[in-house]
């Protein structure tokens, strides 16, 4: 009988705390979004599952010796997992569209205003009682505006590890919500005529250009922004492996098995930061609000910059593609394509939006480097 008593005292039922129940609901919510709504399932599913596991009373997943503790400690605290993901993403990314039309980099630059405006906004939130974001916190929150998961996790793990869970969840959630967030902004800032602009077909790009490109980007980062080289370096290594044509077996492994394994662990580790005491704070609400603002401002700035370029080029650029500058690869580019088709059913913008889209990845890695260097 005392066995049964001990057993009862070791059940979850007897030990649940309200916060854990709420966080489990959040975890289930993330699983629902991933499975039913198909929102970024590759990451939200492991994150949601990690949130369930980490909030189980007595199970000790995040205590010393627990599975999630080890995974977090080895992969996130060191920064290794987001860097490996970035390597895999580099191996999956084709920069042809950007090399064929390098001016698209300006759209990737403009959209980063979402990051820096959010940083300012996060500090402003301190006016509201209950918020006490440091500059490092604000910088980590702002990177949500970069719309790039690994970059956000990498930066948050360096600058504000206690906010990592909320930041990662916000980043991936809004990336999944891009088809809902972006179109109204895009339509508000453009007229129908502009949205109908057809763009010239992109020129073909030689293999030599594709090989030199990642080395050039790395070299620029080395010269001017060494603090961005962990992110940029891993990304360029992956891209170089992809394009050089002599290490295909490494490239394939990096963009398949390696990134898959790391994705499972990264998701679980991020989920392990969704514990009640770290997540159920007023800061999380602030972060979620700021994240939405960041995406909105980034999209708007991208579109406005594209509008400006469209004017200056005499109407050769469709301003919609500026929205893809926030990155959120490849979702944002698909949204651009869809909105474009609504105005002109023969206007396929997907390829033209890939340029600003991948430029946005570089742009937010650069912005992360600046924040790491100055904060």
């Amino acid at each position, binding site marked *: 009988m005392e066995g049964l008593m001990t057993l009862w005292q070791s059940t979850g039922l007897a030990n649940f705390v309200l916060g854990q129940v709420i966080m489990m609901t959040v975890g289930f919510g993330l699983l629902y979004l991933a499975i039913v709504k198909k929102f970024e399932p590759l990451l939200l599913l492991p994150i949601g599952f990690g949130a369930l596991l980490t909030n189980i009373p007595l199970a000790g997943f995040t205590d010393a010796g627990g599975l999630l503790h080890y995974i977090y400690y080895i992969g996130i605290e060191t920064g290794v997992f987001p860097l490996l993901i970035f390597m895999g993403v580099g191996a999956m990314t*084709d920069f042809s569209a950007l090399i064929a039309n390098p001016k698209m980099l300006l759209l990737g*630059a403009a959209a980063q205003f979402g990051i820096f405006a959010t940083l300012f906004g996060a500090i402003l939130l301190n006016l509201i009682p209950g918020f006490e974001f440091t500059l490092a916190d604000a910088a980590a929150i702002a990177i949500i505006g970069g719309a790039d998961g690994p970059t956000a996790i990498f930066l948050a793990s360096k600058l504000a590890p206690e906010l990592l869970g909320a930041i990662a969840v916000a980043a991936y959630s809004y990336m999944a919500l891009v088809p809902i967030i972006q179109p109204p902004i895009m339509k508000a800032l453009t007229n129908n005529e502009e949205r109908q602009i057809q763009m010239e077909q992109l020129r073909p790009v*030689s293999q030599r250009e594709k090989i030199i490109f990642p080395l050039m980007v790395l070299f620029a980062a080395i010269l001017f922004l060494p603090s961005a080289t962990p992110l940029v370096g891993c990304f360029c290594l992956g891209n170089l492996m992809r394009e050089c044509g002599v290490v295909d077996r490494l490239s*394939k492994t990096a963009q398949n098995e390696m990134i898959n394994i790391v994705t499972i662990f990264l998701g679980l580790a991020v989920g392990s930061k969704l514990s009640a005491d770290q997540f159920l704070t007023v800061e999380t609400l602030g972060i979620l609000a700021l994240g939405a603002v960041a995406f909105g401002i980034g999209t708007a700035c991208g579109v406005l910059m594209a509008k400006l370029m469209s004017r200056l080029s005499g109407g050769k650029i469709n301003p919609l593609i500026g929205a893809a500058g926030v990155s959120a*690869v490849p979702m944002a580019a698909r949204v651009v394509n869809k909105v474009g088709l609504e105005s002109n059913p023969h206007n396929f913008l997907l390829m033209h939006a890939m340029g600003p889209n991948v430029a946005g990845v570089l*742009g937010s890695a650069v912005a992360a480097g*600046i924040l790491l260097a100055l904060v």
Partner: protein
Amino acid sequence: MENLSNLLGDAANLMLVGMVVVFAFLGLLIICIELMSKFFGGEIETKPVQSAIRPNSTNDTARSAKITAAISAAIHQHRQK
């Protein structure tokens, strides 16, 4: 409040410096890419730019090619019987 206005100053400064550096960096890349294209853009691929994300497509196309080759061979043999 003293502290907050300091923070706001820092944030404004970061915003300014950050956007300048982002534009400068990516602007520099534009120049570099254009120079590169001038020097190395000659030898051109036959097919135009396609999908920017292709996780496994290489595998599939290679496999299809093999399958097609195998089938062609089989049909040739079959016709010559």
